[in-house]
């Protein structure tokens, strides 16, 4: 039965995880990991192909109607799952040779469980199951962040988990109202009921649920948690790559799903929030010196851009945003893994002290350059196409806002790409071929996503690029690069006026206040508009 593949896709990683934790030694754990991840990749590919023609659906246990939990793999879910499996395969190979990497069985256990939960999150159509899976993934991520016993930062981890629990209570409360109003726990059924309902009835559940999802995406009021946990002293670059590349994308996925369920309520509000988040993320990224913080704030900015693109209520913008999720996931993983190698080679995380990467390691430098070109939206890269589609739905002044955000991204990465040039100072270690190849593969895949067949295959839609429009965008891109370089050379280098923002941080109480404020503002917007 082909539809049972959905259940096994979630459960098998978990069984493997527990099996590895209980029985396997370290070497066999690595072997099992590689074999299993390759098998998962084949399965995900199969699912991606199968879901092109029609959706795969199963009610767990074969119960009729909406009595049981329904799993469904449509094209969107299949894309996200493929991204997940691909990134996990990269991570596993990256960690394969562990001479200087303290991977133990606990690490593999948590990695597999996180994979299972994320796949479950993308497959499930049950509201409460989403709650359970989000809690599990939060706890797993917290343990992963504190994996290094000696250098872990307990305080930030505790703040992270507590804020997440508070946010999940909002979700559960909203779910209660949703269940009260619609009487079902299934997404499709709820969407059907909601389509025939008065929108004022739905303001409260929508506001409660969206507050929690916005916090999961680290939108405006809570934009510091992701960089904060990424820059924990004990956390690794692999975990940071997972957080930035994948874990935050689960929030974006839920955002798409819930906007579909509620029929796109309050999309103007999320457009504004997304744009402000993007600009704030760029400004904070420009002020950072730590390489992880810079990349993490850049992630916040890109997620803001994606949310803004999704809220445009335009078919092409939506396609572009979904495609940008894939692009950005791969690019960020490549960047973070590359940054991990760089910080290992140079023994520092300060971006102003890293110079001359091209002389130290050609593959890492090439992969990083590819990723940087990808994220800025250079010609022929996947990201340029996704941004092209995203902007194609915008007109007027809003278009200039999007171009400005892209200009900001370019500015951040012009600053970042200073690490490629110059001469390295001090002793530098030799890189590991295994990691080099992974980073290089990821960098090349960023490039490969810009090919027309890849787009059509992934999105299952025949998209067409108008030649002149694309050329126009590329001219804008070139102009932005030149302008960004000039701004960097003549303003940013001379005067460090963003320095006060470097230690910008929110305490737990402030985070709670901002959750409440976000909820209140969203509710007011819904009631007024």
């Amino acid at each position: 039965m082909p539809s049972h593949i959905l259940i096994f896709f979630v459960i098998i990683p978990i069984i493997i995880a527990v099996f590895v934790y209980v029985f396997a030694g370290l070497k066999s754990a690595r072997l099992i990991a590689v074999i299993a991840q390759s098998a998962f990749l084949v399965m995900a590919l199969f699912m991606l192909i199968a879901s092109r023609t029609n959706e795969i659906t199963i009610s767990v246990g074969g119960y009729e109607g909406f009595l049981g939990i329904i799993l469904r793999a449509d094209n969107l879910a299949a894309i996200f799952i493929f991204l997940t499996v691909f990134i996990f395969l990269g991570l596993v190979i990256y960690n394969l040779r562990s001479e200087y990497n303290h991977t133990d069985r606990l690490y593999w256990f948590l990695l597999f469980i996180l994979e299972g939960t994320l796949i479950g999150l993308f497959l499930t159509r049950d509201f409460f199951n989403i709650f359970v899976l989000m809690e599990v993934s939060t706890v797993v991520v917290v343990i992963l962040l504190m994996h290094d016993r000696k250098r872990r930062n307990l305080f930030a981890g505790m703040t992270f988990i507590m804020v997440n629990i508070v946010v999940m209570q909002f979700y559960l409360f909203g779910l209660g109202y949703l269940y009260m109003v619609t009487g079902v726990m299934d997404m499709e059924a709820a969407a059907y009921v909601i389509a025939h309902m008065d929108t004022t009835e739905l303001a409260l559940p929508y506001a409660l649920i969206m507050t929690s999802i916005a916090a999961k995406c680290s939108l405006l009021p809570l934009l510091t948690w992701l960089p904060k946990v990424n820059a924990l002293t004990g956390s690794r670059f692999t975990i940071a790559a997972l957080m930035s590349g994948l874990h935050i994308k689960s929030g974006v996925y839920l955002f798409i799903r819930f906007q579909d369920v509620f029929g796109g309520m309050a999309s103007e509000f999320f457009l504004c929030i997304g744009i402000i988040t993007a600009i704030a993320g760029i400004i904070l990224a420009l002020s950072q010196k730590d390489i992880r913080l810079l990349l993490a704030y850049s992630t916040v900015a890109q997620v803001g851009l994606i949310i803004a693109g999704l809220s445009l209520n335009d078919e092409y913008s939506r396609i572009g945003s979904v495609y940008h999720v894939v692009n950005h996931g791969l690019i960020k993983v490549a960047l973070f893994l590359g940054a991990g190698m760089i910080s290992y080679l140079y023994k520092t995380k300060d971006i102003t002290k890293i110079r001359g990467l091209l002389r130290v390691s050609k593959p890492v430098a090439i992969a990083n350059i590819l990723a940087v070109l990808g994220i800025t939206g250079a010609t022929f890269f996947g990201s340029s196409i996704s941004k092209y589609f995203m902007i194609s739905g915008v007109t007027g002044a809003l278009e200039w806002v999007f171009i400005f955000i892209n200009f900001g991204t370019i500015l951040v990465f012009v600053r970042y790409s200073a690490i490629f040039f110059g001469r390295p100072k001090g002793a530098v270690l030799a890189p590991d071929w295994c990691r080099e190849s992974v980073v290089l593969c990821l960098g090349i895949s960023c490039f490969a996503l810009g090919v027309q067949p890849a787009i059509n295959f992934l999105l299952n839609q025949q998209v067409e690029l108008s030649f002149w429009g694309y050329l126009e965008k590329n001219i804008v891109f070139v102009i932005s690069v030149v302008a960004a370089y000039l701004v960097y050379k003549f303003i940013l280098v001379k005067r460090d006026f963003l320095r006060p923002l470097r230690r910008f941080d929110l305490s737990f109480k402030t985070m709670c206040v901002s959750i409440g404020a976000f909820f209140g503002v969203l509710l007011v917007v819904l009631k007024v508009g």
Partner: protein
Amino acid sequence: MNLHIFDIFPIILFFISFFGLITTNNTMKSIVFIMLMQTAVIMFWVGVGARFGAQPPIIGDIAYLENPDAIADPLPQALMLTAIIIGIAVTAINITMLNALFRKYKTMNWQALQNLSSTEVEEDA
């Protein structure tokens, strides 16, 4: 404003504990308040289930035969069983973290903890 009597008390408790969260300085109290918040939400769910009648959904008793419409909704109860276990598990993790933090810094004040741990981060960098 159209509130059922079972709704109003959980909502009040939810916001009382929210008030506690944004005012308290004690980390342990914050954990307790989060637990209160969870209990408020669970109570709300159970109240939603009992809107039309509060007979326990255990058939085989005489209750079902007398008045089948007065049986409480079993689905929220089953979901809330899960939510309760999640709550206690997460609370245990939080408390363990707090214990470890307290051993290290000898304080439970949010602000003091934040200052101490951020200075440690700077030393590390």
